[in-house]
């Protein structure tokens, strides 16, 4: 091992003949030595470079009394030497705005030259949150970007929402990884990420045309470089446990409440002596456990002027906090470039990913733990599973875990290769071919077992599911770059093609000849029980696109960006096959004007504005054509044969096209106190029209309504980012930053008839919990407003009832005053899952080898429907809130008497709508980097150890596990049916080594 890849260079000049002073010292930043800093006698060509310890030595020509230090990524610094012979210098990191290069669609731009709203998260800002998922690592980092963890299951991903929800359909942004357009970024190892750009406004997203409407996330992975080549080894291990548990009653309280419900429903109480049951079973303790998490990564990188490479391998293993679940992932990546000729560069970025997971039926287990009565033990004394069906009409969750045998694997290759040709001096041609291939399989085996009448399986069964999806992209672009005096031009045109296709095959059989793992194949089952299916998986579509952009800058003061894309999509009807998506962006760097005093309080000021149109092409693969429905069989003949029948049952819409979003964005970028304080504010208004919706048509037309481009959605808001960063003379470096996203989401139009748009099943009698009609936010919770509890016969007489109610029942507000509570007249908006405000607040502090960082995240103004509390199909266990029940006049005006069913439980009302606001300490970390002197003796470049904690503290009102509830459809979020795998809090210790 030769860590001395860098060596000191001494340069002498003609100045040698004069009298000289030798000056030496070290250059550091944040307590770390800086290697390769250029040191120059100011105004001369005499210079030196710092070595691996950050030391330098330079001969100062006489007459020269100052030294200039410069280093990429740091602010240049000039020091007066005077009589000193030792000059130690602390360099400050360049305030990024001046030099920061931002990855945008099909290119890079200086942050200063941007006219669009693009937020960048760099590797160091991603921190060391121990997660395998980039999405989860981004939570709270970007104003205007909401990240919702899909669940806390090992290996789970995250959902991205940029600037609200701009459609009634799929609201995911577009994901681009090193130029390859992919369906998700769950496969990316966060350690491999160099930067993430979040494209929010139309000026930045229009170049993605028909797919830019919901924003774009561009991930750029780390390339090798000549400067910091070497070997990196990182490892951490930790322990996870559930963030919080739900407050449920104990056995004595349970029996008391059941007795009361019996009485209230006119039956004899079933438990003569509730106190005798004591505390009973805590089912949540039975299903949650403390689970380990481990990560080990090794990376090699390096290069020279002609080639670079970066090779990483990463192993991640996470057991779940619900016993029986586990996720293992092995990721490799190789990024390489080679300058074959001065005019020709080739390269590639390729990642191979293998992961495997043991799955449990989290929904069933969580509901089982929530519903099972505390009287029944998890496991009886004779070793059998407790029968929770007798009291609670629910499955024993411990048995569910025990009998789970479900595993999946996924093999994925994602990457791209490219070639670049420079020609005619100002032009660069680039051709890029990318491929994303995923093969996934799942196998579920259900053995024969019997726990209770409702939890048993009579025939062993195996289900197998195999699928593949492939997606290729070929892009050809020509870029042009030229500066003529004060005019700077930067333009690109391109032609791209993309094609996506996939298939699945699945089957099942029963009565396996054996239950060992070696028999878990379809062939082990009885052929007569065979079922099979197969078809398209993950979409069948093609895209042909023409794109272009011109950036023009005049004197670094006035900025203009024109961009656009023509997208032709196989998903669009013939009459609307091609869509054009234009945008314009304008910027003004006020602080570059002559009249501006850069030494004033306001060191930097930029104004920008943009307008543009983008599309959402996720409208289904074949919506434009009339599909024939099969399976409409009819019976004929003496043998009663079911003969095939097929016909149209849905009207087609041959004119179907993309959903179109128009967005206006106004932004201010502000730097104060020599850019130590940075502020960025954007206000936006995005209106999506032509949102696809199968607006009802008269039934006399005899077929289902075609999806039509008919609805409209509005998102307005403000993205705010503030950051203070400083390195003091004493070597103390710190950054404090925050971001806030204010969102106002509203459906402007559903259809021409101003229809209700009900969705969001609550699991009780087909009841729907959300209504997205015009004027409401998407997925607004829709139910009865609570007015109190009927305290006595007089109140029962006086106030409106829902059906026939009794004293002690919930009293709903008679909104229309017609003296009766009805679904049509008295339901109102009770809340929504979309927060009004999302915030992130983070800090980083470093001094003398120690570093400390934290991330706080929060959201406010969103609500949750606690739907699991509504659905009671047996004598389920109770949340402790039931203990505040009405038991007689004046005892409660919010919690009704206890019943097993009826309007108190079965109708959505304020009773089940809870505040979903929270603040969470997402991450906290303390690290120590050994001094360079020590590490160099160990032949290491760097050694850092750290301890970190994730989700250690949360302040939330919500009674469930986590108020961030994503259920897939935009109409369905925020409804807690008790089935989402809870997130964990984690404590980790880790080590990072650089050789």
């Amino acid at each position: 091992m030769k860590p001395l890849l860098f060596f000191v260079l001494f340069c002498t000049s003609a100045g040698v003949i004069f009298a000289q002073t030798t000056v030496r010292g070290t250059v550091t930043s944040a307590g770390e030595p800086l290697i390769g800093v250029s040191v120059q006698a100011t105004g001369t060509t005499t210079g030196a470079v710092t070595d691996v310890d950050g030391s330098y030595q330079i001969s100062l020509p006489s007459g020269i009394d100052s030294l200039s230090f410069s280093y990429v990524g740091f602010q240049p610094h000039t020091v007066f030497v005077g009589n000193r012979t030792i000059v130690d210098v602390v360099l400050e990191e360049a305030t990024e705005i001046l030099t920061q290069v931002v990855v945008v669609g099909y290119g890079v731009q200086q942050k200063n030259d941007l006219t669009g709203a693009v937020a960048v998260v760099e590797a160091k800002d991603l921190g060391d949150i121990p997660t395998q998922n980039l999405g989860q690592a981004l939570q709270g980092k970007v104003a205007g970007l909401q990240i919702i963890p899909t669940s806390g299951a090992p290996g789970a991903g995250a959902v991205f929402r940029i600037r609200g929800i701009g459609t009634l359909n799929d609201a995911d942004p577009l994901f681009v990884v090193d130029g390859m357009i992919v369906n998700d970024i769950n496969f990316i190892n966060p350690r491999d990420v160099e930067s993430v750009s979040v494209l929010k406004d139309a000026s930045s997203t229009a170049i993605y045309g028909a797919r830019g409407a919901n924003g774009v996330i561009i991930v750029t992975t780390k390339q090798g470089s000549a400067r910091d080549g070497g070997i990196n080894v990182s490892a951490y291990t930790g322990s996870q446990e559930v963030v919080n548990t739900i407050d449920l009653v104990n056995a004595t309280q349970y029996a008391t409440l059941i007795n009361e419900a019996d009485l209230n429903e006119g039956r004899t109480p079933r438990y003569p002596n509730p106190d005798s049951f004591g505390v009973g079973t805590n089912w949540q303790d039975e299903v949650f456990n403390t689970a380990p998490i481990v990560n080990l990564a090794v990376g090699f990188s390096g290069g020279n002027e002609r080639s670079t490479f970066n090779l990483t391998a990463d192993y991640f293993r996470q057991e779940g906090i619900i016993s029986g679940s586990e996720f293992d992932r092995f990721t490799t990546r190789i990024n390489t470039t080679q300058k074959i000729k001065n005019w020709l560069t080739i390269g590639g970025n390729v990642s191979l990913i293998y992961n495997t997971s043991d799955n449990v039926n989290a929904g069933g287990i969580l509901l089982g733990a929530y519903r099972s009565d505390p009287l029944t033990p998890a496991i009886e004394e004779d070793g059998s599973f407790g029968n929770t069906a007798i009291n609670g009409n629910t499955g024993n969750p411990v048995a569910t875990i025990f009998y789970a045998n479900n595993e999946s694997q996924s093999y994925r290759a994602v990457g791209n290769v490219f070639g670049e040709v420079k020609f005619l001096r100002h032009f660069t041609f680039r051709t890029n071919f990318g491929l994303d291939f995923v093969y996934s399989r799942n196998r579920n085996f259900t053995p024969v077992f019997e726990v209770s009448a409702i939890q048993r399986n009579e025939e062993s069964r195996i289900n197998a599911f195999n699928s593949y999806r492939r997606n290729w992209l070929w892009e050809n672009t020509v870029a042009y770059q030229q500066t003529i005096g004060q005019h700077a031009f930067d333009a690109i045109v391109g032609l791209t093609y993309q094609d996506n296709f996939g298939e699945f095959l699945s089957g099942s059989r029963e009565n396996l000849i054996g239950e060992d793992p070696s028999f878990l194949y379809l062939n082990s089952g009885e052929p007569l029980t065979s079922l099979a299916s197969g078809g398209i998986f993950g979409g069948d579509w093609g895209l042909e696109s023409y794109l272009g952009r011109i950036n023009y800058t005049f004197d670094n003061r006035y900025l203009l960006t024109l961009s656009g894309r023509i997208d032709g999509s196989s998903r669009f009807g013939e009459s609307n096959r091609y869509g054009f998506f234009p945008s314009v962006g304008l910027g003004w760097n006020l602080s570059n004007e002559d009249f501006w005093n850069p030494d004033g309080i306001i060191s930097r000021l930029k104004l920008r504005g943009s307008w543009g149109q983008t599309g959402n092409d996720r409208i289904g693969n074949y919506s434009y054509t009339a599909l024939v429905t099969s399976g409409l069989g009819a019976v004929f003949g003496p043998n009663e044969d079911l003969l095939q029948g097929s016909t149209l049952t849905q009207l087609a819409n041959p004119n179907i096209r993309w959903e179109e979003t128009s967005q206006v964005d106004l932004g201010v970028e502000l730097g104060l106190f020599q850019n130590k304080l940075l502020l960025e504010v954007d206000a936006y208004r995005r209106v999506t029209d032509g949102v696809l919706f199968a607006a009802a048509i008269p039934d006399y037309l005899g077929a289902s309504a075609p999806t039509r481009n008919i609805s409209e959605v509005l998102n307005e808001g403000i993205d705010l980012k503030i950051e203070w960063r400083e390195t003091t003379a004493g070597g103390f470096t710190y950054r404090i930053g925050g971001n806030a996203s204010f969102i106002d989401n509203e459906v402007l139009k559903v259809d021409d008839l101003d229809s209700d748009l009900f969705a969001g099943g609550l699991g009780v009698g087909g009841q729907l919990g959300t209504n997205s009609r015009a004027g409401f936010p998407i997925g607004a919770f829709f139910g009865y407003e609570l007015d109190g509890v009927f305290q006595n016969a007089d109140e029962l007489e006086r106030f409106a009832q829902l059906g026939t109610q009794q004293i002690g029942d919930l009293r709903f507000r008679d909104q229309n005053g017609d003296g009766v509570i009805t679904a049509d007249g008295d339901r109102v908006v009770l809340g929504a899952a979309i927060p009004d405000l999302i915030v992130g607040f983070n800090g980083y502090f470093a001094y003398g080898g120690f570093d400390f960082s934290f991330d706080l995240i929060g959201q406010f103004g969103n609500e949750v429907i606690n739907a699991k509390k509504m659905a009671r199909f047996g004598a389920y266990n109770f949340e402790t809130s039931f203990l505040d029940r009405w038991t007689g006049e004046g005892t409660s005006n919010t919690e009704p008497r206890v019943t097993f069913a009826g309007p108190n439980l079965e109708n959505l009302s304020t009773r089940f709508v809870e505040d979903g606001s929270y603040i969470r300490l997402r991450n906290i970390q303390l690290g120590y980097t050994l001094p360079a002197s020590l590490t160099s003796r160990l032949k290491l470049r760097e050694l850092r150890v750290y301890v970190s904690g994730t989700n250690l503290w949360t302040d939330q009102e919500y009674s469930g596990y986590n108020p961030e509830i994503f259920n897939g459809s935009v109409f369905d979020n925020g409804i807690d049916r008790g089935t989402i795998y809870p997130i964990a809090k984690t404590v980790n210790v880790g080590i990072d080594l650089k050789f």
Partner: protein
Amino acid sequence: MKLIKVLIVVLAFGLAQSCSDILDRTPQGEYTLDNFFQNEEQAIQAINAIYAQLRNWEVHVFSYIGMTDIISDDSDKGSFPADAFFLQELDDFTYTATNVAPSSVWSGYYDGIFRANLAIANLPEVPELDEQLQERLIGEAKFLRAYFYFSLVRWFGDVPLITEPFPDEFSLPRTPAEQVYQQVITDLMDAAAVLPEKSEYPAIDLGRATKGAANGILAKVYLTRGEFDLALNAANTVINSQEYDLFPNYNNLFREQGENSEESIFEVQTAAFETGGGGSQYNEVQGVRGEPNLGWGFNRPSDDLISAYELGDPRREATILYVGEVLPDGSDIVQDNPNIVGERFNQKAWVPEHPGGNGNGPGNIRILRFADILLVAAEAANETGDPGATLENLNRVRARARGNSSVLPDVTTTNQSDLRLAIWRERRVELALEQQRWFDLVRQGRAAEVMQALGKDFVEAKHELFPIPQGEIDLSQGALSQNPGY
């Protein structure tokens, strides 16, 4: 060198053009209208899909029974008091334009009409389709279209008459009932002209629409319109075809052995498979609720129906299933369910088992049987002044019902109005709980009289027709008008 570089660029873009067919896709694993209706198999499948609609929940199950039997004097709602309250509203004549039942049948019957229209429009274009088969298939589609419209026009009066699959306008007004009837008659005559007789079909096609079925429905159409000459003529065509006869045992007519019997002119074919599918919920919704638990217990035979039978009429026992009665297959005894008052069930809809789930009933739904046609002939003959033919047809039905017993003596009067009443009563008991009663009452112009006598809030000149579903009026952007009184 410059040239090479420029060439590379030009070549790459040129090559890229070879991808230009990337946008042309064919839906995978699914036919579209563009590649369907291309062969005989698909032509037959499109027709089968119309028949499939006959087993549909909206067409011949819940609301259908509500709007034919429950609303009439033959039955009450049944089941628990609060269960499916919208059907109670039918029984009580308190329903409004937002009641589920009218909108449900409206939707189901128009779905069938769409499928028929699609087939009728596309079958002539199917390449290399045997001409005779094509004629027959179109005949079947027209028969089914007529059947759907005949029900709609009787329930709602004027309805939008749509005979194209894709009308240019989505907002369509109601067509006068007279025009709808003319279309029904034309379709049935077209169908009768090309459809084979029951005996002319190959066995595997048992259950398809026949010439006899077309003529039989036509007879009922004419009867409904008071065109008694034409009705008699059409009914006699069926009677004289020698294709049909009365099934000897009235009770067994509704069991599996009575399916597709010599008496059957048209019935919805069902078969319940263990793996699911093939059946209908017709049996389940009328099945015994309680012990043995076979269904939901709707369509409870009314006291008035019980009292309508002549003394000893065996058809009463064959029609009504009482608590304590042994099931028709002798497998069990109907137990009393304390939550239901006055439990009784429609025995004609009873089936011994539901393979593949309770919702999968195997009992064929009898739409038109020979006894009905004999009574149509009797009624038409009476109205046209032919008491001989009237008595012959009427007594033929009574004789079968009587069997070997001495009840139900032949009717002998030749007084036209006495005969009319006798025929009407005979229709009621012979066809009880077979979803004929309401249409008969309205057709006979005495719905108000009969229902009001039972204390129902029947409003004359209103309740003879159901309201046009309010949702349809809204969605038609006001093109549809409402029936009077709603």
